[in-house]
């Protein structure tokens, strides 16, 4: 690696010992000055170059594709203006996908944060075998979302699924997880929660451990019980972390694809698109119907939605931060 690395970057030369004499402006001294001046740009350039090519350019180009008729096979067609957008916005399936995406997102993010905080509170004790418990909650994180999807698809099977068998043995009726929209959203949200609760638990645990212990001690002296301490001390002090977790999970959560994609074998989100998310809709338009123009229009709209929510998040966060005493 060392060899190739140097071969790739010829600019920073070695300074011969003579350049130590600072006053004399020799060639090697000039080289050394260039070294100082240009090396930093050289070191950060791979990131910026690659990111521009594979990240920024495609995002901008998406807008270009979205205002053209564009076919997966045929390529670029005529300029279409906003036709793709007006078409998409008139599609019931688009609005259906918007609703599904938000529904799944809410059903997964809210319980996820609550569960993670509670579990973290239990982990934030003087436990035996701390590392064992911490590793234990993180096991689901190593299971790929696709595998999680397949496993829970079976657990939530309408017929002979474990969840329904348990419900029936308790005297309830089985739920039609694969046809009722809300039920399917709950099943998919469960997959997301399964994979991410442990991860977020550790984030909250770290934040809890950063809370000074003497705060708890003085609360205990004032007679606050464990529960009171949790609600009056721990939870308010976690607020910045909660906001952070919510913001970051928004970006990923609104692009959810893997779990709903494998919730049945057809991958389109159910017979009536009960659990088709926006990213799945992009896939269906682009690679199912081979209409890249329309797929790009949806991608761009989803991008705008995410930006909008990020901005909204930012203002709410600032509001809360100004109101609350926490930094």
């Amino acid at each position: 690696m060392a060899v190739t690395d140097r071969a790739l970057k010829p600019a920073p030369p070695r300074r011969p010992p003579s350049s130590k004499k600072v006053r004399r402006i020799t060639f090697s001294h000039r080289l050394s000055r260039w070294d100082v001046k240009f090396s930093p740009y050289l070191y950060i350039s791979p990131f910026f170059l690659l990111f521009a090519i594979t990240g920024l350019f495609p995002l901008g180009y998406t807008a270009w594709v979205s205002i053209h008729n564009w076919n997966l096979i045929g390529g670029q067609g005529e300029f279409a203006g906003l036709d793709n957008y007006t078409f998409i916005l008139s599609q019931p399936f688009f609005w259906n996908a918007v609703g599904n995406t938000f529904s799944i997102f809410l059903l997964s993010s809210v319980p996820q944060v609550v569960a993670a905080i509670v579990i973290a509170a239990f982990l934030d004790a003087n436990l035996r075998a701390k590392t064992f418990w911490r590793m234990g909650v993180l096991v689901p994180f190593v299971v790929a979302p696709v595998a999680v999807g397949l496993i829970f698809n079976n657990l939530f099977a309408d017929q002979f699924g474990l969840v329904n068998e348990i419900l029936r043995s308790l005297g309830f009726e089985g739920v039609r997880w694969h046809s009722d929209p809300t039920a399917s959203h709950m099943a998919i949200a469960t997959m997301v929660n399964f994979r991410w609760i442990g991860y977020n638990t550790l984030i909250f645990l770290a934040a809890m451990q950063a809370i000074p212990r003497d705060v708890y001690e003085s609360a205990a002296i004032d007679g606050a019980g464990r529960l009171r301490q949790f609600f009056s001390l721990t939870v308010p002090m976690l607020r910045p972390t909660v906001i952070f977790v919510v913001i970051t999970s928004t970006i990923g959560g609104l692009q959810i694809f893997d779990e709903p994609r494998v919730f049945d074998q057809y991958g389109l989100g159910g017979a009536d698109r009960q659990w088709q998310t926006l990213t799945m809709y992009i896939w269906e338009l682009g690679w199912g119907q081979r209409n890249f123009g329309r797929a790009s229009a949806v991608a761009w709209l989803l991008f705008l939605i995410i930006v909008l929510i990020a901005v909204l998040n930012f203002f709410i966060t600032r509001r809360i931060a100004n109101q609350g005493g926490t930094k």
Partner: protein
Amino acid sequence: MSSIPLTAQTAGKGAARAASRRGNRRRRKGPGGTGRRPGFLTYGFLGAVLLGSLFPLYWSFLVGSHDSTVLSRGIPLLPGGNFLANAAQVLDSIPFWTALGNSLLVSSVTAFSVVFFSTLAGFAFAKLKFKGSKWLLVFVIATMAVPTQLGVVPLFIVMSRFGWTGSLWAVIIPALVTAFGVFWMTQYIRDALPDELIEAVRVDGASMIRAFWHVGLPAARPAAAMLALFTFMATWTNFFWPFIVLDPSNPTLPVALQLLQAAHFVDYSVVLAGAVLSTIPLLLVFVLAGRQLVSGIMQGAVKG
């Protein structure tokens, strides 16, 4: 993709905080300040959580070790003897070994490249003075919030123009760098590498790249290892883009797993046997490096 950004903006001051926390932990007692060991309730609750996080995997093995009719005969409690037969069927119906090799290759190359470029850029951002560095770093941080996944259509157009669709390059190239990696390494190197050390080797006549190689890289090693681990796992479990761009004949593991479902949707014992098989490699990684993974998430988590 979504797994990495989650720690993103919080990575701040990782090392310093971690060090101070380590001191804290030695002194600290329970949240009540009592130092008492928690009671049965706590262990009972955590035990239940642990069961919950292990159960789906156990269930997958349970179903995967019976035949296709097992669930219609009632809920099994113990594994059956059919796992190897199901595994053989998995190997028959999807190119499992190809997928395993591909996943290994793609994840390793990606992890290596992300760590290398991120350390290089992190070293520059943290320790070298240059015009625009502040602004450029803000740009890097801002790009962490950009959902690049939404650029799949043009990315696909570009890849097919180069004739790379179906090849592993199409998966590797867009993953060679991450904004999170640059940010993570910048934060770490800023705290972990004293300026004096760089000055010392510079005074001794070392060029910038030598300073990076002999001082920067060794100092960054712990954070680099963590970044490698996270990148490896995130790439291994990534599905959306590989699913779009790879052929069914040359997939990565998650893509192959989805093919298995399409082929065997009636016989769920084979599908879940495949799910188990595909999870084993990362479970091994977890057994070996789970401790580092935990501390990596916790270090990155403290709000920055």
